[in-house]
Structures are given as C-alpha cells and as structure tokens.
C-alpha cells in the first residue's frame, strides 16, 4: 500500500510536468491546427535558461533565499522562453499561415533540429548537473509503512495547480482568452468581428511557451540535470498526453499528462523500467483505436 501511494505521488508529479507542456501543444493545435514539433525543444531551451539564471543569481547574491531565487528564475525563464517561442512563430510559422497543411509541420521539424543543434553548439554536448536545490520532505505514516512527500514534489504540484488556475482564469474570463477561444472556433469569423487573429496566435504561442518554461523550471528542480537532447522525449510524451486527452481540449491535456505520468511511473515500479516508454506509447495507440478522438476530444464531424 505504502509503495503504491508513493508511486502515485511520483506519477502525479511527473504527470503535472507533462500536462504543463501538453497545454502548449494542444492550444497551438486548437488554434491553427498544426503540430508544433519545436515545442519540446522550447521546453529544453527553458531548462537551460533556468539553469543559467539560477547559477547567475546564486553566484551574484549567494545568500539570497532559495524561494526568492526560484521565483525570480521562474518569472525570467517564462519571459525569455516566450520571446523564443514568439520569434519562432514569427519566423517559421506565420509566413506559412494559410499554406498547405504539411508545410508548417516540416518548418517546425526544421526549427526543432535548429534548436537542438544551436543549444549543443553554444552550451556543449555534455550533461549539465547541479546539486539538489531543495532537500528533504515530509514523512507520512501509512497503515503498513511510511511514504515520503518530498518538498520539491509539493512545490511542483503546488506550482502546477496555482499556474493552471491562473491560466484557466485567463482563458475563460478575460477578453484575451475570449479572443483566443473565438479564433479556435472559426478564424475567419473572428477576424470579421475585429479580432486581430495574428496577434492572438502569437499570444497563444507565448502562453504555451510560458507554461513550458514553468515545466522546465520544475523539471530542473526535480532532476537537476539538463542536456541539449532533453527536449525530444518529454516533448513527444507531452504531445502523446495532448492526443490522449483529446487534442484541442485544455482539461484534456492536463488529464492526459497526469495519465501518461502515472502509466510511466507505475510501469517502471511494477514491471520493467526499460519498457516504460513502450508502455506509454502502446496505451496511446490502444486508446486511440477505441476512442479515436481522445478522452475529452470532440469527435470529427464529416462534412460532405
């Protein structure tokens, strides 16, 4: 029992990181119908930004409280990563708006190759490891043993919940979010009604990147290792999560992320750690075969 609950906590922690990245995929897909392949690498860039900022802050103001440092890093990483994503959208995707469907996909794959190799060039190919930022945890007694709730896990889940709430508020209650949802439903109609579609799409990319940056900071806190190749696998899994939850649906992305995190952790805990990714991808394939539009996705309407 204690083992199971422990794994449940670990799975939810990992899943919240996937969920945060998945929102970026699902929003972009919802509004312009493209798979933003570079999103996973934007997440990787955010981890490097966070790592460097953290080292910079601790070397400049050594005694600064770690909580304050983390907040500064979080905000700065969100801003700088958004800048990257905004630029990518501007350079690689906007000229292809209205072009045929595979063009932005290829452009995104090209961008992803560029980002990976650019970071490898400027930061070197080695893994960058930092000492644990937050130590310790709370030990909770269970019926047959103890479970440990690490402080960093509390931090990750807490941050995810707070930011998702803020994000939900942004999408549901502000004019910005309304414009975003309108463009998602019908871009042409939204444009006729005076919504600046290009700006809204840019903002979508910025929001997605900001949430990916949050995920990047949390990932760094959890694992403490960064490498230029770290964008691909979390990116693919987050995209899997978005599809599993039903692409285009925001709550779906979070649910999908949590599910993928849980599947991965449970599989490594009870079966084989080598095949954890195989399990995640297989469950994706099986789910899609039986529920072709994901858990919360709207079924495709066939128009003749």
């Amino acid at each position, binding site marked *: 029992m204690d083992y199971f609950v422990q794994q449940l906590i670990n799975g939810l922690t990992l899943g919240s990181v996937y969920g945060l990245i998945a929102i970026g995929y699902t929003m972009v897909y919802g509004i312009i119908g493209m798979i933003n392949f570079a999103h996973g690498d934007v997440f990787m860039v955010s981890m490097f930004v966070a*790592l*460097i900022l953290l080292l910079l802050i601790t070397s400049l103001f050594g005694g600064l409280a770690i909580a304050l440092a983390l907040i500064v890093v979080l905000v700065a990483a969100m801003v700088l990563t958004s800048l990257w994503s905004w630029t990518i959208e501007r350079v690689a995707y906007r000229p292809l708006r209205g072009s045929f469907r*595979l063009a932005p996909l*290829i452009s995104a794959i090209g961008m992803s190759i560029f980002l990976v190799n650019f970071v490898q*060039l400027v930061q070197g190919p080695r893994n*960058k490891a930092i000492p644990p930022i937050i130590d310790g945890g709370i030990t909770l007694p269970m019926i047959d043993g103890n479970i440990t709730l690490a402080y960093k896990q509390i931090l990750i889940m807490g941050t995810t919940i707070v930011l998702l709430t803020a994000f939900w508020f942004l999408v549901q209650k502000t004019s910005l979010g309304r414009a975003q949802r309108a463009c998602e439903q019908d871009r042409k109609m939204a444009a006729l009604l005076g919504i600046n579609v290009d700006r809204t799409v840019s903002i979508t990319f910025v929001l997605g990147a900001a949430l990916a940056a949050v995920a990047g900071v949390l990932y760094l806190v959890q694992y403490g290792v960064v490498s230029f190749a770290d964008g691909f696998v979390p990116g693919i899994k987050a995209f899997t999560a978005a599809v599993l939850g039903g692409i285009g649906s925001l709550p779906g992305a979070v649910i999908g992320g949590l599910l993928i995190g849980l599947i991965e952790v449970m599989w490594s805990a009870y079966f084989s750690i*080598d095949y954890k990714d195989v399990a995640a991808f297989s469950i994706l*394939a099986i789910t899609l075969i039986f529920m072709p539009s994901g858990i919360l996705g709207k079924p*495709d309407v066939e128009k003749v």
Partner: protein
Amino acid sequence: MTGRGDRREPALDGGSAGVLTALKDATLLALLTFGLSFPIVAFNTRQDLTQGLVLEARWDLVATACAVVFLARFVWTLFGPTFWRGGNAVVQRAASLVRATGISVDHVRWFGLAVLVTYPFLAVWVTGPGGAIKWIDNFGIQILIYVMLGWGLNIVVGLAGLLDLGYVAFYAVGAYSAALLSTTFGFSFWLCLPLAGIFAAFWGILLGFPVLRLRGDYLAIVTLAFGEIIRLVLINWVEVTGGAAGISSIPRPSFFGIPFDASPDGFAATFGLDFSPLHRLFFLFYLILAMALLTNWITVRLRRLPIGRAWEALREDEIACRSLGIDTVTTKLTAFSIGAMFGGFAGAFFAARLGFISPKSFEFMESAVILAIVVLGGMGSQIGVAIAAVVMIGGTEILRELGFLKAIFGPTFDPAQYRLILFGLGMVAMMVWRPRGLISKREPSISLGAHKAISGVHVKEGHG
C-alpha cells in the same frame, strides 16, 4: 491561388524606406537578438575541477551577434526591395532563356539518369581512385539510399495522403531482419533482401490494420509512437538485437556468390583485375541505384493501375471514395505496406553496406528527414523527391568538406558543427520560400482529353 501566390512579396512601397525607419527596425531586431541570446549565449556553463558548474561570460559573442543582425537588417531595409526586384528580374530572364532552349522535365530526367549511371566513373576520373571512395560512398550511395526511402514514403504520403511519421520503423525492421537472418542462419544477402522486404511489409500490415481508421494527425502520432516503440524494443531486447551496441560483422553482399576480397576466389581474381576496394563500392552503388530505380518504376506503374488511382482518389476525397465503393481500409493498407516494403529493402541494403547496425541509425530524426525530402520535393512528384534528396543530403555532406573556412574564421572553426544548424534553418527557409516543394506542378496520372500540368495547390494532402 497559384504556386506563386504562396510566396510572400516584400512590401513594395516604391523604392527604399527612409533611413530613420531602417534604423528603428534594425535597433528593434538587435534588441530581440539580445533578448534571445541573453542567458543562453552570453554565459557558457562549464564544469570546474570540483565537478560543479561555473559560468563563463561571453558578452563579445552576444555583441557580435547583435551588431551583425543590426547591420544586416539596416542594409536590407534600405536596399532590400531594390535588390529583390533586381534578383527577380535576373531569375525571370534566366527562366525565359531556359524555356527558349526547349529543355523540359523529360530532358532533366534523362540527363540525371545519365549522370547517375556514369557517376562512379566520373568520380574516379576527377578525383583519382583514392579520393573517389568518399565521393561514391558518402555522396553517391548515401544520397541514393535517401532517394529510395523518399520514393518509398512518397507512396504513403504523396500518393495515398497518409501522414506517416514513423517510416524509419520499417527501415529498421528491414535492416534488423536482414542482419539477424544473415548472422544467425548464414543466409546470403540475396536471400535476405526479399525476406527483409516481406518482413517490413508484414509489419506494415500488422501496424497499419488497427490504426488506419484514424484520421490525419492522430494517424501521424500513432505512427510516430510505433516508430519509437520499435526503436525502444531494439535497444532493450538485448538478447536478440544486441541492445544499444547493435549487430556487427554482418556479411557483405557478394557479386552473385563471388566475394569482394583479395582471395583467389575473389571478384578481382575471377575477372583478372587488380584488387581494389573500389570494386565493392561500384557494386554497392549500382545495386542501390537499381533498387531505387525499381522503386520508381513500380510506383509509376502502380499509379496507373486501379489501386494507384484509388490511392490518389482517397487522398483527394475519402468520403467520395467510400460512396463509390472503394474499400478505404484495404486501399490504405496496401499503400502503407508497399511503402513499408521499400523501406525494408533499403534497410537490408543499409545493413549489408556498413556491416554494422545499431538503434542509433533509426531515430525519429531519420523519419523527419525522409518526410522532409518528400514534402520538399513536392508531394507525389518522383523527380522532385530525387532532387530534394540530393539537395538536402548532399548539401549537408558538402558542409563537412569546407575545411578552407578555417583559414577565414581561425583554426578552432569547425564547419561540421554548423551542419545540422544549417540543415534545420534550410528546412524552414525552403518551406517559407516554396511551401509546395520544389516541383509544385505535375501531370495528372489520368486525365480526360489533353494532358495539362496541374499546380500542386490543387493536390490535397495528408487528411488521412
């Protein structure tokens, strides 16, 4: 909308913009460059003696980048439109000259074929026997493998319109089945080759059957997932596949039973030639050329058969197809498995060519590159795919050879490092420049009355 309309014309505001606008524009862009490069370029993270990370400031690099961007943008805003018009005029003049000579796609096709057939001899003639190894192996054979993979995937993506992001899985199945059959059972290459194709096609059916009901992007992600699953299994099933270390000492292909070695029974001795490693390369080159041309020939023939017509009809409108009584699942499945079969053939060749395979060669990036070749070539255009493979694979291989740049940028400059960066940017630039691919016009496979070239804009794609 025509193919030309896809391109974005620069603002034609009649002559050059004002200096002030140019300054403002350039300053903004330089600021953006600063923002992008601030932490990630400005500081290098380096491990010190205690294994901790320390930061090294590189403000000079950031300053250079900002200055270059500023100057480039400034000059472009001032003189860009003039330059653009001048360039366009030159291009149009060149195009009219080419038209005047009466060269058509047919000529290009035959010329290309002639170059291909004589290529190994040309390479030896130009660079000598020592230098030719690189040109035949790294350029010739490497490019032809991608041409073949591109043509194979073209059946799935270009003709049937199914977006497959996991094509490399079938390439891997072909390579691993050929390698395992030859190392465990001692089968010769000529037996492994068809078996590898059959296995790959079988896997294509196995994977395709449950997922081909999915549409568009769902199909894309499931194929991607399958590609990853196969790669992960190859890494983790160590007893059979050798894990990450791969399989080595795979027997090399022989000349119909005569090995390419220096022994008395070898190829050189049998035909009374002096032994040279070039013989094997020549053989491999013509083998992959023949395989690629066979792929092309079969594809072109299939397109005229009812099944090929059904593929193209399916790509254009699935609902219309169903109402006309075409079994969509079977039709998709044939495209998927025939594409997979050619991937399997190419995989068997790949295994035999190097004598060594590992999961490293079958990563997602390979699928992405092959898909990029198909899309850049212009979906469904055979010659376009071949040109795209030459440009993309040849172009990145050429970047390895630019050693003379060291003389300009100093001895620490290594052009190979920039290879993939330029590759990625090249993909973006090509898409922005020609979203429909290089050959965006082609003859329809069947037509009523006169043959007319159709613009690629009218060809649908990948809606599943």
